[in-house]
């Protein structure tokens, strides 16, 4: 409890407040720009947060994450082009509202819903994470091995178009994670003659390549279209009390759904927002049911609450078990590790002050998102108009300086460049970047768990199946691999 209170006072320090405001501004801008993702923004920010105190760094990263989730809705509403895929559902009712001259109302509904969704997920973050972290106390090397397997199966199964490709992405990530030193024997593995690779692939540079430079190449391959001007916001950016009451139950319910979707690895913002939209449709007052799609605030509030609730939800398994459920939290986990913190129970005991400052900061960034989202919408809409021809060289320049500045090393820049190409091909060949990153993180944990267990038990393979937690983890791994098949069977039966 003391740590929780301390967290709030620390989050309100001037440095942390400045970090919150700036990161939310950056996040909303990145989100508002169609073609740029939250993952890209967070990856590029890591080098800048490198020298900050850990709690400030984490708050800044969360600010970009939260801001970008909301920012996507601005271009969805004003341009009919969702800034992020999570905002696609928002466009369904958001843009018709703009055409009716109610853009301000739509933006207000989106920011209130995002705020409420975010706060609901923050409540889950506060209550569920310490519990889950306690569970992690019971984990030995064997359990960590199975946990890493579970993490891989679930993301491979849920987040790819094809499960096989998800698994291939995971396996590729595992192979890449063996680059560096053998964790048990210290042998140099696959370092291609470069001492910079002794500690493994430079994580930040790899991420910037996979998520930022790949984006540059994706933008560069197409005709550079002139963006249409964002529509003007003609009405006031506010909701009446009655309207707020109308969306409140929907946002609360969608917020819960979004939080759960966030906790489940692989589900993510896009899925959550579409479920949020459908749930809003189901739960709305009868007189509004037929109006979905014609531009009503419920249609904006449902998906926006759900996708912002994913942020807090997805932080829970990331911080407690070290399993990030999507690419943004995978990158955030990288940021955590760079700061010398490890996910797990220590975050809530030894590093409790840092963690709870971060949690309080998460609440603060949501408040700033609510305020800035409404006050700054005209400027963010202008940012959404920036041409791809400008974004291409600017993002690449930032990718170069970002990957260089972590270790002041040009090798890292080349690693970024190579992984930019890899990320581009991964996109084109429909592999899954998030699964690769997850495997890069989970690979070493799994390898150490496996090898420690075998060494401790003199090579006895059956020792991997000795504990109850291990068996449970194996069972849910198998279940997660089978889920897509079961779901498709159920779907077929329904038909």
């Amino acid at each position, binding site marked *: 409890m003391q740590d929780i209170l301390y967290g709030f006072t620390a989050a309100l320090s001037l440095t942390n407040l400045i970090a919150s405001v700036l990161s939310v501004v950056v996040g909303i801008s990145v989100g508002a720009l169609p073609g740029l993702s939250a993952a890209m923004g967070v990856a590029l920010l890591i080098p*800048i947060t*490198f*020298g900050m105190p850990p709690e400030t760094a984490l708050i800044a990263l969360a600010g970009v994450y939260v801001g970008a989730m909301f920012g996507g809705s601005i271009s969805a509403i004003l341009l009919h082009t969702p800034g992020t895929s999570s905002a696609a559902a928002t466009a369904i009712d958001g843009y018709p509202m703009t055409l009716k001259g109610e853009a301000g109302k739509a933006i207000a509904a989106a920011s209130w819903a995002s705020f409420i969704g975010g706060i609901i997920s923050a409540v889950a973050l506060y209550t569920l994470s310490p519990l889950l972290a306690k569970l992690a106390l019971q984990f030995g090397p064997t359990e960590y091995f199975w946990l890493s397997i579970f993490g891989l199966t679930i993301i491979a199964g849920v987040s790819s178009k094809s499960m*096989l*490709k998800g*698994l*291939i992405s995971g*396996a*590729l990530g*595992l*192979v890449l*994670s*063996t680059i560096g030193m*053998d964790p048990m*024997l210290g*042998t140099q*593995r*696959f370092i291609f003659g470069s001492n910079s690779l002794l500690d493994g692939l430079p994580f930040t540079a790899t991420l910037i390549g996979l998520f930022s*430079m790949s984006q*540059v*190449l994706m933008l*560069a*391959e*197409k*005709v*550079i279209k002139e963006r249409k001007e964002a529509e003007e916001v003609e009405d006031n950016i506010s909701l009446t009390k009655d309207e707020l009451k109308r969306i409140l139950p929907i946002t609360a319910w969608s917020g819960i759904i979004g939080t759960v979707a966030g906790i489940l690895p692989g589900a993510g913002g896009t899925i959550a927002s579409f479920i949020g939209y459908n749930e809003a449709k189901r739960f709305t007052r009868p007189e509004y049911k037929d109006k979905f799609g014609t531009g009503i605030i419920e249609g904006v509030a449902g998906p926006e609450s759900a996708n912002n609730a994913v942020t807090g939800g997805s932080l829970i398994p990331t911080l407690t078990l070290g399993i990030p459920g999507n690419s943004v939290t995978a990158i955030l986990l990288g940021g955590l590790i760079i700061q010398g913190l490890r996910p797990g129970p220590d975050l809530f005991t030894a590093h409790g002050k840092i963690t709870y400052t971060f949690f309080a900061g998460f609440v603060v960034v949501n408040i700033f998102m609510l305020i800035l989202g409404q006050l700054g919408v005209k400027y963010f809409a202008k940012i959404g108009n920036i*041409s791809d*021809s*400008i974004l*291409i*060289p*600017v993002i*690449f*320049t*930032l990718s*170069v*300086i970002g990957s*260089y*500045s972590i270790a*002041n090393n*040009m090798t890292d*820049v*080349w690693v970024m*460049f190579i992984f930019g*190409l890899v990320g581009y*091909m991964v*996109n*084109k*060949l*429909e*592999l899954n970047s998030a699964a690769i990153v997850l495997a890069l993180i989970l*690979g070493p944990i799994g*390898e150490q768990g*496996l*090898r420690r267990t075998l060494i401790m038990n003199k090579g006895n393979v059956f020792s991997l199946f000795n504990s109850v937690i291990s068996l449970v983890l194996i069972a849910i791994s198998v279940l997660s691999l089978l889920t897509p098949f079961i779901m498709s069977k159920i779907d077929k039966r329904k038909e």
Partner: protein
Amino acid sequence: MKKLELLLGVILVLVSGIFYYMTFQLPEKSQIYPLFVITLLLILTLIHIVLTLKKEEDPNAKTGFEGFIPGQFFVVLIGSGLYVALINILGYFTSTVIYIISILIALRTDAKKSILISAGVTIGIYIVFKRILRVPLPTGFLV
């Protein structure tokens, strides 16, 4: 589409091959885990190749390369590679200014705007990375 899927298979078999080759250069005790994950990748890749070969070609399938403009793409890619290579020779700031202006002009932004954007970005990076974060940026024979 099928060609692209097979290309993926070939790339991954090559990657596995390279890693296999390197694994056998390692001391025996260090080979087991890498062999395990590489074999996993290879098995999954082979399943992918077999499934692709068995599948009939869908003539309407999208390849993901619709609207691909090779000229523009390779100008950006090669330009970006040259930029990274030039940093140690010309220095970080000189290369950055040249890179941004050249790419902007290549993508048909007008010259005046290109110079302004390039100056703005470079000054921004100078302030954040050089002044605030104190990153020692590479200097070649220029800055």
